[in-house]
């Protein structure tokens, strides 16, 4: 269960290591087993070889009952080396009695195998049971020797049997030697493979853990801060990276959309509120102004009352101006927008621009009359351009561009002034948002209201060190 919670950064290398280890063990066992089998086969072959050499001379010695010759023959088969010294050579006569052996102390001449213990009694029974003319290997489970039985043939008849026995204990040191050699070479291979496996495992898991880390940050950190260097590719993790990036992109779009919706809803609410308040104020305001007019026309005010009345009238007029500024209403009576309308704005800007030595870029791509009310569009352009001039520093850059693109009129106004702070950005189009002491704080509000009334959209962005306001207004058909 602990393993289940472990990071893949450790799990995958561990699994790779385990696979390598398991492979190493399996290969080692297979090699050992194979070598061991070879060893046995070698011993049997060796025994048969010795037997076939002896079978050239031993049968004659048996036939002539020359015991000393037989002893010398099997003595001559002795080869230097520890394994050979432990080799048993027993010649049995045709009655399966020991004719001679290379260990007369253990197997005396004329003795019977069955007197040498239970194991050899079994060997004797087995040899008697299987008279043969071809050599075979005799391996009894509880015997401490492995015997090869080789008939001594004279003219097609077995006149005796040669038993060549190798002690099982002989296998153990050889077997251990093999195991040791295999183990050493396996260890060397593992020493090389394990770090490689660890490295590869780590490498494979790295994008995964990076992705996990990134995913973990989504939700806990702002989306803008979630920036992942993910490998993209066609493998699964690469695809995951691509999908993740796509998801992040969509999340950001959605978030932006939500923010925009919240902002526009808030602006709409403010608009409704402002319109309601303006309407409610305008009626009594009109009444009050009428009353003042009536009083002036028919009454005889003294000097103090006259001064007071004009003070009230000015105050009421200011309220009226403010309210009407808040209440942006589309006036339908304006004419269609012409290229000249745009150039007029250029002329209007000149005093401010020259005073502050601002470089004004002006691109009017409009070459014909378009289906938009000129007053509102001019109002928008003037507001944005004046704002831009105010926002930029002395000797700064301001550029305006008006063009048609398909069924849209596009206005883009850029300035090289400071970036708009996030606080201000949130309330950018609300009324009474001040960027400086001079303005009324209603310019962008009015602009926004006009754009909305014309079914257009307005965006602000920071591009290449410039703040860019762009307005898209759908063109109306000629009707």
């Amino acid at each position, binding site marked *: 269960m602990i393993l289940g919670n472990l990071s893949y950064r450790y799990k995958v290398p561990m699994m790779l290591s385990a696979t390598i280890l398991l492979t190493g063990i399996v290969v080692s066992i297979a090699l050992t087993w194979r070598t061991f089998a070879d060893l046995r086969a070698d011993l049997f072959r060796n025994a048969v070889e010795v037997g076939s050499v002896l079978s050239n001379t031993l049968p004659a010695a048996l036939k002539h*009952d*020359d*015991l*000393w010759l037989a*002893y010398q023959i099997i003595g001559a088969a002795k080869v230097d080396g520890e394994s050979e010294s432990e080799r048993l050579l027993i010649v049995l006569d045709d009655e399966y009695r020991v004719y*001679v052996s290379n260990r*007369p*102390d253990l197997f*005396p*001449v*004329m003795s019977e195998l069955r007197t040498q213990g239970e194991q050899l009694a079994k060997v004797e029974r087995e040899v008697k049971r299987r008279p043969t003319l071809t050599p075979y290997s005799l391996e009894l489970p509880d015997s401490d020797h492995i015997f090869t039985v080789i008939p001594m043939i004279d003219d097609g008849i077995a006149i005796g049997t040669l038993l060549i026995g190798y002690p099982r204990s002989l296998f153990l040191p050889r077997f251990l030697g093999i195991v040791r050699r295999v183990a050493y070479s396996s260890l060397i291979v593992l020493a090389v493979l394990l770090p490689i496996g660890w490295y590869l495992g780590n490498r494979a898991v790295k994008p995964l853990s990076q992705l996990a880390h990134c995913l973990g940050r989504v939700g806990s950190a702002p989306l803008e801060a979630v920036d992942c260097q993910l490998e993209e590719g066609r493998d699964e993790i690469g695809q995951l990276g691509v999908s993740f990036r796509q998801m992040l992109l969509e999340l950001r779009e959605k978030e932006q959309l939500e923010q925009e919706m919240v902002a526009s809803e808030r602006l709409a609410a403010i608009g409704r509120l402002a319109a309601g308040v303006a309407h409610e104020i305008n009626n009594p305001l009109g009444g009050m102004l009428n009353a003042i007019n009536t009083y002036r026309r028919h009454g005889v005010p003294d000097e103090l009352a006259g001064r007071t009345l004009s003070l009230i009238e000015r105050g009421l007029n200011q309220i009226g101006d403010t309210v009407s500024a808040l209440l942006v209403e589309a006036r339908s009576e304006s004419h269609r927008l012409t290229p000249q309308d745009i150039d007029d704005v250029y002329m209007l800007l000149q005093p401010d621009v020259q005073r502050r030595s601002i470089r004004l870029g002006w691109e009017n791509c409009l070459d014909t009359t378009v289906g938009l009310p000129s007053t509102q569009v001019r109002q928008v352009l003037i507001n944005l351009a004046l704002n831009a001039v105010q926002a930029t520093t002395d000797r700064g850059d301001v550029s305006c561009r008006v063009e048609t693109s398909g069924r849209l009129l596009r206005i883009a106004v850029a300035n090289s002034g400071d970036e708009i702070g996030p606080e201000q950005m949130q309330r950018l189009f609300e009324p009474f948002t001040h960027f400086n002491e001079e303005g009324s704080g209603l310019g962008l509000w009015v602009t926004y209201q006009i754009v909305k009334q014309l079914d257009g959209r307005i965006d602000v962005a920071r591009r290449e060190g410039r703040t860019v306001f762009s307005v898209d207004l759908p063109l109306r058909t000629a009707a």
Partner: protein
Amino acid sequence: MTRPRAAWYRALFRLLLAAMLLSLSQAQAGGEGKGFKVGLTAVFLDNQTSFIRQWEKYLARRLGEPFEFVQRQSYREITQMLAKGQLDAAWICGFPYVRYRPRIRLLAVPLYHGEPLYQSYLIVPASDHVTRDIEDLRGRVFAYSDPDSNSGFLVPQVELLRRGIEPARFFGKTFFTWSHRDVVVAVADGVAQGGAVDGYVWDTLSQTHPQLTNRTRVVARSRRYGFPPFAASATLDQRRFERLQQVLLGMSDDAEGRRLLQKLNLDGFTSGDDSLFDGIREEVALFERGKR
């Protein structure tokens, strides 16, 4: 002109003289120095080829003519070659010597511990602490050296015959090793549980190869018999017989000869007397009677 002519005659005379002398010496070698061929048997440690070569060289030098030792597998081959006159002499056992008289005659008898006598030993493996007598070996495996050997065959056979035992049925199995040394090996290794061996050979082996003889135990020593003698073919002429005898008897008189004798573990040679082998004659008589 006279001086060169005289010189030419002198040179011719010298040449003729040299040719005459050369042919004379060759004639002498052809008549006298045809060389000796002497057989050897396993009555001593005959597997020491380098020693035998040294002995050959020594004898050739002392005799002043080629000398060659001849070895064969069994006593019988050598004895028969000797009897047929194919060999001038041979070192054989007392048993065939007695049998082949008078076709062969006594040439020299080795002196062992100062006497021309030796014994037969009955040996068993050192691990056998029980056997005290040949009769304890009933039914066992017994190693003889050679059927023509006195110490390695005749003595134990006659010993059993003396006790009224039929030798052919007494042991479980018997075999010949064809040399005394191998009897010791067979008993030491345990192939045989008993063996009859030339006492001189066993004693010599106990000095040179104690690790071999230590694995055997001497159970019984026989009475003393005439040492295996050098016998000459009856056809060997008297003069060559005497020269060969002289050289053998004289071996103890020079350093090289003594060194060789020391290797043989012998003191020297004596001309000996045929009566030395009367003991063996008795044995043979008993043996022949037992066979009938």
